[in-house]
C-alpha cells in the first residue's frame, strides 16, 4: 500500500515536472502556457493503472477524463475572463474558477455518467 503510494507520488511528480519544465523552456510564453494543461497527471495515472488493473479499468477512467477535460477548459476560460473583465487578483481568480470546474464536472457526472440522483 505505502509502496504503491510512493511510486505514484514519484511518477506523478516526475511527469508533471517534466511537462512544466518544457513549458518554462518555450518562448513565446503564450506557447509555453499550453503546457499548463498538459496530460501529465493522466499519463502517469493511466500508465500505473494499466500496469496494476488492466486496460479496461483505465478506459473507464479515461471516459470520465473527457468530462474532466471539458471542465478544465471552462476553468481556464473562467480565469482568463475574470482577469480580463474584473479587478480580481490572480490568486483569488484561480480559486474562484474552481466553482465552474466543479459545476461542469458535477453536471457531467450526473447527466452523462448517471451519477447519484
Amino acid at each position, binding site marked *: 500500500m505505502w509502496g*504503491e*503510494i510512493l511510486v*505514484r*507520488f514519484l*511518477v*506523478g*511528480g516526475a511527469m*508533471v*515536472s517534466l511537462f*512544466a*519544465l518544457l*513549458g518554462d*523552456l*518555450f*518562448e513565446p*510564453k*503564450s*506557447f509555453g*502556457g*499550453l503546457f*499548463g*494543461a*498538459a*496530460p501529465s*497527471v*493522466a*499519463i502517469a*495515472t*493511466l500508465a*500505473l*493503472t*494499466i500496469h496494476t488493473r488492466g*486496460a*479496461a*479499468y*483505465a*478506459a473507464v*477512467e*479515461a*471516459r*470520465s*477524463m*473527457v468530462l*474532466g*477535460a*471539458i*471542465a*478544465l*477548459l471552462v476553468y*481556464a*476560460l473562467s*480565469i*482568463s475572463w475574470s*482577469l480580463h473583465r474584473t479587478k480580481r487578483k*490572480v490568486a483569488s*481568480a*484561480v*480559486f474562484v474558477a474552481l466553482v465552474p470546474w466543479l459545476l461542469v464536472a458535477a453536471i457531467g*457526472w450526473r447527466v452523462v*455518467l448517471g451519477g447519484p440522483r
Partner: protein
Amino acid sequence: MKVRLDTKTIKNSHWYGHVLRFVLGGAITVAAGLVAKGFGPAVAGFLLAFPAILPAALILANRLQNTQAGPGATGARGRRAAIVQASGAAMASLGMILFAVIVWQCLGRRPAWLVVGAATMAWALTAGTVWAARKRG
C-alpha cells in the same frame, strides 16, 4: 511568431516553484489512485484532468513577472502573464479532451503504449494547431 527554446526563464525561476509542482503532481496522482480505490474509476477519472498544476503555475508566473518589474510594479505585468498562460491552457484543454477520447475509445483494442503515445501526440498537435491558428487570426 516563431516558437523557440529559451533557458533564461529556468535560470530566473526559484527552486520552490519546481518543488511545488513536483509535490502537487505527485499528490494529485496519489489522490487519483486513492479515489479510484474508494469510489471507483469513473470518479477518479475526473482527477486526471483536475487543474492541480495550473493554479500554481499562474500564481508563480504572476509573482515572477511582478518581481522582475521592480519595486514600482503595478501588478499589470504579472496579471498579463497569467492571462497569457490561462489562455494557453484553455487551448491545450481542447487537446486534453481529444487525448481522453482516444484513450477511452482505443484502450484494450490496441497496445496500451501505442494508445497513450498516440493520444499524447494528438494533444500536442491539437494544442499547437489551435495556438498557431489563434496567432494567425
